[in-house]
């Protein structure tokens, strides 16, 4: 697989890989690093990639496993290091205060999204997480543009109300 072929196949998957990474790591910087690492790994194995039938599934599984390894290592360090400050320092990369708050919020939003009704969850995942256009979502789901907007609106409002409740409690 040459450079252009590799880019054609895997670059469009970068965003999906990133979403998968952030779902596990809850940090933009760590998710971007994880995807960069996976691209390096994919490039190193590009000779054998031609044999893979579904590059999308392969790349997403790869990044998921990599992120789970990172996450498990952080948990392992957490149990080894008694001091809570050390745990936080080990898990976080830069700007600890912002990272802690941001990680918490990403985690909360993800929990709320998981609890949404199926149709709302699907639309918000496609639109706000995977960054697909309304036209693409119409093609994927078969829903009309108005329906998509309505479901997206309901999903965003539901996230807001649940998020505000969590914040108050």
């Amino acid at each position, binding site marked *: 697989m040459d450079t252009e072929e590799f880019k054609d196949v895997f670059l469009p998957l970068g965003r999906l890989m990133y979403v998968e990474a952030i779902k596990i790591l809850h940090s933009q910087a760590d998710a971007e690093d994880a995807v960069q690492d996976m691209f390096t790994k994919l490039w190193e194995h590009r000779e054998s990639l031609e044999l893979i039938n579904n590059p999308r599934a392969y790349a997403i599984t790869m990044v998921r496993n990599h992120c789970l390894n990172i996450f498990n290592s952080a948990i392992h360090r957490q149990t080894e290091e008694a001091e809570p400050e050390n745990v936080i320092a080990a898990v976080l990369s830069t700007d600890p205060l912002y990272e802690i708050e941001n990680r918490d919020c990403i985690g909360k939003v993800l929990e709320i999204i998981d609890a949404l009704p199926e149709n709302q969850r699907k639309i918000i995942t496609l639109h706000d997480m995977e960054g697909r256009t309304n036209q693409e979502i119409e093609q994927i789901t078969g829903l009309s543009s108005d329906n998509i907007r309505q479901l997206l609106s309901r999903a965003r409002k539901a996230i*807001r109300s649940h998020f505000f409740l969590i914040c108050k409690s």
Partner: protein
Amino acid sequence: MNIDQQKKLRELLDRYYAADTTADEEKKILEMLSDSGLPDEFLPDREMIEAMFAFVPDESFETRLSDTIDALASKGRKGKLKSIILRYPKIVKCSMAASLAALIAVMVITRINAPLTERTYMSPKDTYEQTTMALMFFADALNKGYNAIEIADSTTVDATEKAIDALATIGTYFADY
């Protein structure tokens, strides 16, 4: 943040929750929410929307991925050449010798085909000096090529010796058991 800006932000947020904003308007919301003078009433919106936007990678993300691939590709090309030199030193030596011979042949043919006046010297002394100089240039070039081959050769030998040592250590380890 003044009253007008707050009104504008509230209006944009209402439209965001109604799924009625463009990508540019959503960027504007994010920008307004990051204002240091943001009133407390908007703080939960800020936390939530910043978390929602965390699912969108940085604008330069794809470019950086593409650059990473380009860097890996160019690194791979250099590495490939190096590994060919180390793996097939005899072939490389033969290729270099053949190239050198071809180059000399071309030079000689060019000189032979040149007009007679260009390769004629006034005296035997001039001829001797020119020949000596040409031979010195040739010897120097040959020496440089030979040194490069020596370096490549010694690197291969070192790597082979290290591999043999490692295998011997492994052999000893298993023999002990």
